């Protein structure tokens, strides 16, 4: 089962509860909105997609689980592609 975790090389600055990250490789700055910041926080410890989905389902009980899962898949793929999150 694939586990996801933060790339510890990225440095974080929190502003108004939202995270700004700096890529140590190319000096790029990333802005994460509240939802994506939540995902980043959750991944301080390695987790599977199912574990993340359970946490998000509890946090957003009014949102359809299938939609949450689809959003989660897209967000994780984007973060992995940009190197913010490591899949292993």
């Amino acid at each position, binding site marked *: 089962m694939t586990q996801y975790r933060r790339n510890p090389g990225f440095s974080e600055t929190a502003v108004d509860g939202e995270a*700004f990250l*700096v890529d140590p490789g190319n000096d790029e700055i990333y*802005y994460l909105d509240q939802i994506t910041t939540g995902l980043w926080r959750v991944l301080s410890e390695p987790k599977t997609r199912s574990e993340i989905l359970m946490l998000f389902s509890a946090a957003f009980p009014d949102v359809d689980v299938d939609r949450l899962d689809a959003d989660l898949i897209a967000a994780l793929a984007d973060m992995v592609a940009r190197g913010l999150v490591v899949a292993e």
Partner: protein
Amino acid sequence: MMMRMPRATAPLSPQADPKQSHGVAEVGGTCRFSASVGSIRIAGWGLIGAALDTLTPHWPHRLAGAADGPEPVHVSVIADKGGYRVVTPGGNVAALWFADPLSAAHAAAGALIEARLAREPDALAVHAAAVVMGNRALVLMGASQSGKSTLALHLAAAGRVLLGDDRILLSAHEPGVAAIAIALGLAPKVRLPVPHDLGPRFRNFVAARENGRDDAAGAAFLALMPGEQAAHGERVPVAALIHLSRQNIGPTRIFPISRSQAVRAIIDQGAAPHLPGGAILALAAKISARVPTFTLSYSSSRRAADALIARFGKDFDAE
């Protein structure tokens, strides 16, 4: 949602056509531009000096003489292949080729700003215009076409001192002051023809101060009268940052934005090629924590200028 911030890693000057360099020749003396410490030198002044004079009317500079002694040259302009090459040692504008002196002067001005910025600790260059209200600065940030220049010139025509147009240095280094806006002394620029709806006061103000044209860009450079524009290096505490949002239609609204939005706006419009990304982020976060930031949503620059004076002018002018 995740966004990669479009931090300016490009040069502060316009892009050019890269060409092979053969048989270059440097012409025409060295000019010293004043800086916070010492000076910034441009070699090959004779090639683009007249054009650069038009772009930097309030940035003191003079031809260097033998008595000035040796100092490193920061920007070299050389004649090459019927055009001009602008070279900065280790800079972002290295060895770009330009067909005409005005384009080369724009690149040289960008290199000057980079060299000047590197001498200010904890500062970045912001794509912004600024005016002085009372003894504090209102910094108008925005992308190209957001109306920075027009808005700032409306305020200048209404009697406010123009702190700068297009580029302002923002520093959070000085103790006891939230943030400082530092004037660069660049010429304000207006697009031509000046739209009729900007009003007779604006049109007359511009017409009386025109000091050259950029025909390719369809714009005029202005040289403001003594006392109307701050000189290069003038430092004014910042009262507020205004993020411009120009609309096709709709009312004028000024509303505060969150710190996170302010950080994004500063990074989006800021440039500091000498600083790593982490330092730029820290600086933007520091400024956003110290200076109130607003969005100005508007469709009429004349009404927007009136709204800024109504919202900020009374308090600041009374200080």
